[in-house]
């Protein structure tokens, strides 16, 4: 990658790390939330659904500010995590937290759709054959929603790569620490002569976004074919 400067490489690597962890840590919560919203009927379900989708419709700067209030050093969650020795404010972990929260609704939507497509009658069949709920989930539901889980994860990863507003509000724009790819593009555009670096990062952004989209389509089709048995 000789054509990239060290600051650009650093931003790219940081973004990949942030997005990877944001997606991985969010995934179990995303599957659980999608299952709960798709299959369980409980009071406040619509409210929960709204909460999950909030980051999608709120201005990102608002989400970032709310994160700062709760997870900042003086915030309630921030203090709690601080006592456990985890500090997210102005660290790459904070960037991952912001990216994860912003990507969460996209992930839940994709997985929820695939869960709703699974016929509950198949899960009943599993139960009559002796499988308890967790086993039915692991042996019937999960394999059948795999395409949705993969598609949701790739979508979430791509969203995390592009997250800007909440991240910059919550953890600022510190090179090497919280300066992700979009933050770096923004920073380069602020200084005279930075257009070259910005353009290179923009090209990389486009490649990653396109690649993620194509990959998710491909994997989704492969997995769907496997699951439907054709």
């Amino acid at each position: 990658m000789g054509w990239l400067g060290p600051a650009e490489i650093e931003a790219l690597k940081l973004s990949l790390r942030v997005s990877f962890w944001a997606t991985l840590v969010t995934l179990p919560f995303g599957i659980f939330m999608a299952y709960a919203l798709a299959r369980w009927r409980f009071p406040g379900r619509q409210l929960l659904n709204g909460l999950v989708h909030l980051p999608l419709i709120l201005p990102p700067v608002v989400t970032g500010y709310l994160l700062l209030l709760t997870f900042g050093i003086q915030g309630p969650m921030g203090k709690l995590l601080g006592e456990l020795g985890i500090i997210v404010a102005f660290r790459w972990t904070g960037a991952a937290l912001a990216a994860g929260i912003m990507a969460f609704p996209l992930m839940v939507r994709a997985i929820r759709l695939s869960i709703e497509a699974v016929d509950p009658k198949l899960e009943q069949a599993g139960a009559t054959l002796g499988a308890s709920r967790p086993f039915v989930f692991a042996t019937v539901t999960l394999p059948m929603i795999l395409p949705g889980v993969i598609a949701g994860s790739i979508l979430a990863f791509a969203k995390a790569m592009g997250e800007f507003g909440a991240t910059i509000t919550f953890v600022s724009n510190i090179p090497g620490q919280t300066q992700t790819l979009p933050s770096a593009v923004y920073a380069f555009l602020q200084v005279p002569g930075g257009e070259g670096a910005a353009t290179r990062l923009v090209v990389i952004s486009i490649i990653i976004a396109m690649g993620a989209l194509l990959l998710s389509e491909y994997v989704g089709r492969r997995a769907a074919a496997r699951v439907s048995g054709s």
Partner: protein
Amino acid sequence: MSLSVHLQHDLPDIKLDLSFDAPLGVTVLFGRSGSGKTTVVNAVAGLLRPKAGRVAVDGWELFDTNQNLWLPPHRRRLGYIFQEGRLFPHLTVRQNLSYGRWFAPKHARRENPDKVIEMLGIGHLLDRRPAGLSGGEKQRVAIGRALLASPRLILADEPLAALDDARKAEILPYFERLRDEVSVPILYVTHSAAEVARLATSVVALQDGKVVRHGPASDVMADPSVAPAGVRAVGAVLKVRVQEHHADGLTELEAGGARLFLPRIPHQVGEDLRIRIPAQEVILSSKRPDGLSALNVLEGTVETIRAGDGPGAIVSVQTPAGPVLARVTRRSVTALGLEPGKRCYAVIKTVALAPQDVGGRLSPA
């Protein structure tokens, strides 16, 4: 009694309130759609929680609302064969078959997979996925999957309803073998009189959520007042023995000294069978008929005549072969002067005896 069912439940249209005890073998829940059959099976399976009731298999309670006892479906040790098969699409046939086996207690694994696979003739399908199977093949795999879970109770909810006649004829023998070779009670839901005649050890006739008749197939099916599937389902069930296969494509059966002919069936000479004779395929004559194309004429005496509000009547004729039912008009009853004790002849068209009405004989029926 190996299966004991007491249920009360409110459905949108009907109130379910029924009890029955079933012996080993196939207990058929018979009734038209909406009579509550599937609700009963789902409550037994634990997929539906009834308002009140108790179900026990060999004295082992699956639930009892009085004791606040409720086993979840996965602890009921069932083999449920669904109408649509419900095979797992992401697993191969082999994996589908072993699914229930994974969860069965090790000491309870009675069935030998190789034997079951051979019995169902699905050895060549093991590496395929359900999407690549025909309807009949899917249902055979579903039977195998249920059986290999080593269940203490087999449930079947209209397992043939989604199949065409040829596939039905392909699957029915496997249920007969289940009944005769597997010592597990089977609760079988259907609205087909032909399936009842072939499979039932006992029949529980349901109407609007109540048991209207319960007993051996030959009794329940001969009672036109039950007629859960309509008057067309009324028919006598006779015990017969295969006498001879004739060169002209007919098979000769012997029943209590009388001879019956029907289109050739695959059963061996000397084999004991049950055969259902639909009442609407029987014609009555007060004199020995002459110059008729029908080959089967049974002489007997009128036992009962049941007439409803409509123009039809069901006449029960005692013949050497057993009681035969005929569906005739009330006008004919008057014209022929039919009354209990009167001699008459029951005429059955040979081709009216369809192969799907022929099944292996049962000891208790």
